[in-house]
Each structure stands twice: as C-alpha cells, then as structure tokens.
C-alpha cells in the first residue's frame, strides 16, 4: 500500500476541518486532490500572470480543455478544443504504458467537452540516446511506440511535434501530448454538474476499476527515486486504446442522442484522483455535492479496498451527470449498441451515485460511510489557504537583460550550460523534428547544422520516429506531420476552414525566461509559416522541485517569458499543465522546458502554404505565408 505524501501541516488541517481523525479513504482522497498534480498548489498563483482572455476564447482555462472559435460554416459556429498535458514520470518508469496513457488521458480531456477528437501532437525529451543499448535509448523507443500505438489505434492523426535528446533528461524524460477536437459551439458539454442537477445520476463509463494507477497523482508530484522504481510501476496506469476507440465512438453517439433530445448534461474525464477526483470536481464546480456508492462501481477484481476503488487511476473512464429520464437510453448506447461489456472485461456504463444539494462529498462502501467531507474543502481549499508564497529575493532567476540580443540564441557564453547539447558527439538522435532547419525561416535558429551527423541509434532503421504515427487517418489531413512546420487539418467536411497546430520548445536554451519566450514565438512562427492566423496557445511547464528556490525560480521565469511573448502577440493561453519534480537522481532539475502549442486558423485551405511539390510555396517561405 503506497504511503500518502501529505505533509504534517496538511494532515493537521484536515483533522481540524473534520473535527476527527480522517479515514483511510479520506487520507488517500486528500493526498490525490491536494497533490501538485491536481491542485497546482505551487504554481497556481504564478500562472495568473499568463494572458488567458481574448475575443476568440470560447472556454478558457479551468475546464478539462480550452475552446477557441475556429469559424462559421453553414451558419454554425465551430470551436477548436485543445488540451495539453505531460506524462513524464510514468513514461520514465514504464515508457510504453506511460506514453500511451498520456495520449489516452489528453484525448479524454478533449472528448469530454462534447468534441470529436481530430488531431494529436507530441513533444518528447529523451536522455542521451547515443548508445543504442542504454536505458535512455530503450525508454525513447518505448515512448515512441506508446504514442504511436495509442494514437494509431483510436484513429486520431498525429500532425505536429518535436523531439530532443539531451543528457539532462537521462533520469527524467518528458512526454508532452496535445490533443485537438472540434465542436459546434452550441453543443459544448461542460465539465460541471449543470444548473438544477441535484438528484441527477452520476454515471461511470468505461473500463472496470482495477488496482492499477493507485497513487498516480501523488506519485507524479514527487521526485522519482530509483529505489522506488518497482513500487512506482504500480502507480502507472494500463492503457487500453482498443476500448478507448469504442468508448469514443459510443460517446459521439451519446452526444448525438443528447442533441436530438435537447438534454444538457455534464461530462468529465477521470484522471488524477480517479472516481473521487472526477466526481468531486464535476459536482463542486456546479455548486453541488455528491453521494457515491462504491459497491456499484464495476470492478475488475473483487475485494479491492475502498480507497483503491475511490482514488485508483484506472484508465479509459469518464463520468456523466445525466437527468434520470435519459439514463437508461445512455446506458443502452454504451452497453448494448456499443457492447462495452464485450469489448473489455467488466467494462460498462453504470450508475454509481447522484448529485446532492448539500455540498458534502460522501462515499459509501458496504454498510459504512467511508468518506464524508465538505466538497469545496476537498477540491478547493488548498489553493486558497496554503499559498506557497516565497520571498521573491530567493528566486534566483536573473534574466540577462544586459544582453538584449540573447533572447532566442542559446547562451553559449555563460558557461552555465550543464545541459548543452554536445554537437560534436552527435548525441541528438533525431534531427529536429520539423522542416525549420531546412527552410531557415525567420524567427528561430537554424538547427540543421547542429543536427547533421546525428545518429538515430534507438531506431532499428533509419526512419524518423514520427513515421510510426498515423498522420492521415480521419481523411481530413491537409499538411501531415513533418510536411511543413505546422500540421493542418480541414476538420469540417464540406468546409474550406482549416486549423493549424504547431509545437515548440528548445531545451538547449538554459535561460528559463528566454526559453519561455522562445517557445511562444517559435510556435506562433511555425503556425504563421503555413499561412495560418494564430489564435490561441497552450503550455506545459516542465520543471524541477518547487521547494528548491532555484528550480522554482526557473518556473517563474519561464512563466514570465511566456506571458511577455504572448501578451505582446495578443494571444491567450486556453489550456495548460504544470509538471514539477522533474529532476535527476542527485536532485538537479531538468533543463528548463516550457513547451508551447499554438493553434491557428486558415479561412480557406486552398491558401495553405507548404507541401513537397509546391516549390514556390514551400514551408517556411514567408513571402508566401504573409497574408
């Protein structure tokens, strides 16, 4: 049984609020819900510095995914749903499963907004892979296979991304994944219990709850310890893209059913904190409480302790908040039309409880009430009452303002480049993952010379890793992965509207502020280079231990860099993620890794710039891209 990672003062706070000793289930629930992963307790107030509003924002930060306005077709307004997450620690421990569940999780975040999932992107940071027999090489191989296996099976094209290999990631790789969806703005489904939903059904859909992924949220919020490697494997979830493929299609059918019957519902992905985290957040966000009967949960094995059922992070699950008069029909769609129980053992849609009026979060198990807490205390308090304010003097991030020209350049002169790539050794396994090097379009650096001579030792052939990703499924692809600097889709059949997606972040930039600023500008430049108009950003901030002032300083500097560039460009962040405690065995942080994705609009895909045979309008040809 994993221990909880709550601090003594946090446990004391829980005791005081409850007026009694917390139960085992409650301890695990608070452990998950108050983890950095769920609460952003270390980063939340710094994140307020990012611009998040704009005329195109339909749903801003706060729900499972952001939504920006794409355009109008046949009188309908369409939005692009976008979400961005990391799955770093799981991928270091169990690379294939960690990376695959990263894709699976981000897809659910987009799906639960009522959207059809249309595209994926990935930003990967591996350790030194120059030795094909090294652990780092096998981790890289597993990660690529995991991203490929999941995305390919569910049938969502991977259209953008990059990959770097640097020794600074030897003990802590990064797997950042971005998913994009499309939704009619009139048909968005929210991740909260709708108004007037007291008494409505809470319906759990998907894979049977099993003991995998127990302690996952908490695990991702501490530094990895090699001694715990075996134990940590149990905290990683098990992916099932086959079931997800069916779950997605069944959910699309449910979306159509709800539309036809003019029903408002709530829908949310189960991620960190499992059933407890999802049901508590969806109900508290609507201003309600919840009563859940853990005995009604479809489980994979009998006899699981209630805390594992409640908090375990089994993959491929979502929760609906449904008015009772439609519940039977929705269950029929999942269980009979799409035969979930035949797709995976004990998978199904099942009523597990209801929305309550009293703002209590109550879990029953057997004859016992195993959890009974104020729902807002569970989901919200930590954010307000445990601020991690530190004197700003301890933040050692001096941006080098004396050298105004250093912003995008790698600062080779400072001598602080512990993580700098050693070009002479050819330790970069993958040439930088876009055509930027070839076209040398304005903005970023030309990396082609640095990447030349690079080996790809972890591949059993010479093909780049992204050739393993299906980039054309769904038949909407305009610019496939790595054809140009951004991927482009025509997501609405019969419409000329296009959406572009690009990812950027350069871990060789050691100044965190510069890295943040560069990531924004580079992602935006890539989107512009295909003729698209940038409309929104997402970010994932991958940094070290927030309790270390130097690491926290890097995070804050990067946020300031992101904010400065995004503000200047007038672009909002609509979704994001923070991944902390990324460090090596000696406690050194990974290279600063703010990773940014940019979404752009193309009013007419005939005007897309890029593609192999249009030599005059080649990717990155800014003369053609300016419009």
């Amino acid at each position, binding site marked *: 049984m994993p221990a909880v990672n709550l601090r003594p003062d946090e446990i004391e706070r829980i005791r005081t609020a409850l007026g009694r000793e917390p139960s085992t289930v409650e301890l695990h629930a608070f452990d998950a819900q108050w983890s950095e992963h769920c609460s952003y307790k270390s980063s939340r107030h710094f994140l307020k510095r990012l611009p998040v509003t704009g005329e195109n924002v339909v749903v801003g930060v706060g729900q499972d995914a952001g939504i920006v306005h794409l355009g109008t077709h046949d009188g309908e307004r369409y939005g692009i749903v976008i979400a961005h997450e990391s799955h770093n620690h799981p991928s270091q421990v169990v690379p294939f499963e960690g990376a695959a569940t990263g894709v699976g999780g981000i897809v659910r975040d987009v799906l639960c907004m009522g959207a059809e999932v249309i595209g994926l992107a990935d930003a990967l940071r591996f350790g030194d892979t120059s030795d094909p027999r090294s652990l780092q090489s096998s981790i890289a191989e597993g990660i690529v*296979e995991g991203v*490929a296996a999941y995305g*390919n*099976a*569910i*049938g969502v094209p991977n259209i953008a991304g990059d990959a770097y290999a640097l020794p600074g990631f030897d003990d802590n790789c990064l797997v950042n994944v971005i998913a994009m969806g499309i939704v009619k703005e009139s048909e968005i489904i929210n991740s909260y219990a709708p108004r007037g939903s007291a008494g409505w059904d809470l319906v759990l859909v998907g894979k049977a709850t099993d003991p995998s992924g127990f302690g996952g949220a908490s695990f991702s919020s501490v530094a990895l310890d090699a001694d715990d490697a075996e134990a940590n494997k149990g905290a990683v979830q098990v992916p099932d893209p*086959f079931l997800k*493929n*069916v779950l997605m*299609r069944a959910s699309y059918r449910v979306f159509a059913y709800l539309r036809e019957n003019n029903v408002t519902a709530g829908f949310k992905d189960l991620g960190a904190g499992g059933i407890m985290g999802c049901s508590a957040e969806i109900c508290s966000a609507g201003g309600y409480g919840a009563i859940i009967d853990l005995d009604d949960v479809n489980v994979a094995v009998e006899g699981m302790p209630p805390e594992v059922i409640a908090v375990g992070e089994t993959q491929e699950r979502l929760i609906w908040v449904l008015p009772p008069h439609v519940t039977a029909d929705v269950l029929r769609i999942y269980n*009979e*039309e*799409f*035969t979930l129980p*035949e*797709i995976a053992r004990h998978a199904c849609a099942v009523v597990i409880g209801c929305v309550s009026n009293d703002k209590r979060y109550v879990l029953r198990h057997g004859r016992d009430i195993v959890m009974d807490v104020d729902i807002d205390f569970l989901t919200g308090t930590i954010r307000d009452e445990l601020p991690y304010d530190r004197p700003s003097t301890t933040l050692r991030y001096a941006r080098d303002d004396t050298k105004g020209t250093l912003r995008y350049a790698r600062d080779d002169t400072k001598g602080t480049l512990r993580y700098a790539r050693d070009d002479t050794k050819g330790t970069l396994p993958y040439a930088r993952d876009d055509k930027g090097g070839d076209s040398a379009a304005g903005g970023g650096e030309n990396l082609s010379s640095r990447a030349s001579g690079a080996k790809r030792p972890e591949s*059993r*052939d010479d*093909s780049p890793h992204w*050739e*393993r*990703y*299906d*980039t*054309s*499924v*769904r*038949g*909407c*692809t*305009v610019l*496939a*992965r790595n*054809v140009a600097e951004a991927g482009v889709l*025509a997501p609405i*059949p*019969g419409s*000329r509207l*296009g959406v572009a997606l690009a990812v950027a972040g350069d871990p060789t930039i050691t100044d965190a502020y510069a890295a943040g600023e560069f990531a924004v500008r580079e992602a935006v430049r890539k989107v512009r280079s295909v003729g698209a108009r940038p409309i929104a950003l997402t970010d994932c901030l991958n940094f070290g231990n927030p309790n270390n002032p130097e690491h926290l300083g890097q995070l804050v500097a990067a946020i300031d860099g992101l904010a400065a560039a995004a503000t200047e460009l007038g672009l909002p962040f609509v979704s994001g993620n923070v991944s902390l405690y990324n460090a090596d065995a000696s406690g050194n942080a990974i290279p600063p890794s703010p990773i940014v994705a940019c979404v752009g609009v193309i009013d*007419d*895909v*005939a005007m*897309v710039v890029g*593609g*192999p*045979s*249009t030599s005059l*309008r080649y990717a990155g040809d800014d003369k053609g891209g300016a419009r």
Partner: protein
Amino acid sequence: MSGRAAVLVFPGTNSEDETLRMLHAVGVDAELVHWSRGESLPEYDAYVLPGGFAYEDRIRAGAIPAHDRMLDHVIDGAQRGKLVLGICNGAQILLEAGLVPGTGEVRRPTAAFTRNAQRHFVSKHVHVRLAVDPTRSPFTALLEKNVLIPAWASHGEGRLAASDEHLREITGGAHVAFTYEGGAPNGAALDCAALVNKPGNVLAIMPHPERDGWNFNHPGHADGADPLAPSGGAIFFGGFAAALK
C-alpha cells in the same frame, strides 16, 4: 448489380467515417453497419471493410474479425458475386478470410499481410499503379491502364508474404491488382499493394486511397484547384460506384 453498400464497423475499426464520406462523394448509396447489428448485412448488395484495428489486431491483424459472424455474411455475399472491398485492416481481414487471393479455401489463407520489414508501423504517402488490365475487375473497370493512384500507407502489418508456390499462383493468376510505385514501403513481396480474387469481385488494398480523396488532402495540391473537389484517391472508387449504379 445495383444497390446499397454496407461499411462494416468492427470493434477497433477507425476509418469508417472518411470511407463512408468518400463513397457518398462518388455516388455510392452506403451506410455504416456496426457489429451489434451485423445481422442486417444480408440486406446489402456490397460490402466495404474500412481501416483500423478490428479486435485490436489480436493474434495478428485480421485474424479475429475474419472469424466474426459479420464475415459469415461477407463470405456468403462474395461467393454469390457481391462486390467486397477491403482497405488496410479490411484488406487484412479479407486475406485472413481467404477471399483474396482466393486461391485456397475460405478462412485458410494462402498468403499474409504481415509485419512490415521495419517491424513497426509506417505512415507514408504513396502512389500505387494499376498492375492488371482494367477489365480484370469491376473495381478497376473505369481506370486507365497503368494509372497511378495516390494513397496513404498507414499500417504495421502490410507486407505481403507467401510461399514461393503461392506467390507463383498470385502472379500467374494476375491477383496483384496494384503495386507500390517506387518500391513497397513495407517490404511487400511483388511490391504488392492490392490483391484481387479470381472473379474480380473482391479487392483488398493496403494503402488508403480515401485519405487522398480531396484536393486538400493531396500533398502539394496545385494552386487554384478547388480544395473540396475529389482528387486522385476518389478515382479509385469510381468502378465500385459504377458497378452499383
């Protein structure tokens, strides 16, 4: 021959929507038939098996769905002359079902679309060349001789493999309907991209023509072309559409 086509959806299929869209665009009366209503399949006049990972590619791609109840109806229809088209995973299923090349017994395959030479998934834009006389099959009847069709190869198990004896049968019977132009991206024997059965009513193609079905799909599509007009991949479906008219 005239009538309606069913696009079969197995658990794990992932290319049904774009396949249906392409069929509609070329004038085929088609609809999706999910596995839970597979019993309605005899009502249809033609079958299309789209891409994906039916039953998770367990054992090997196509092996489990080839034994699914839905395939009973497809095999029955094929034997009675109904048109059957398999794309990618659908092609793997038809091969496992023994319908292509069709030189052996039903469900006793004589060849395989097996692991790519690279031993991993390959996603590449390709062109396939018509390798039989257009009159060989209703699927190819409207194509020009030796025509090139653009498509996306997106598979992990697409390499045609068979014994020398069976390869001789495949060559001798003109069962290779399309070859990869410039060499197979997966190491396939005979550079084979598509197989057709002896009567010509069952065709199995590994790459996806429907993913290069519109001008906007086509890499480097010409300036000024209507992005929403059908492109080269749509041509592939013309014979099928005409045969169902």
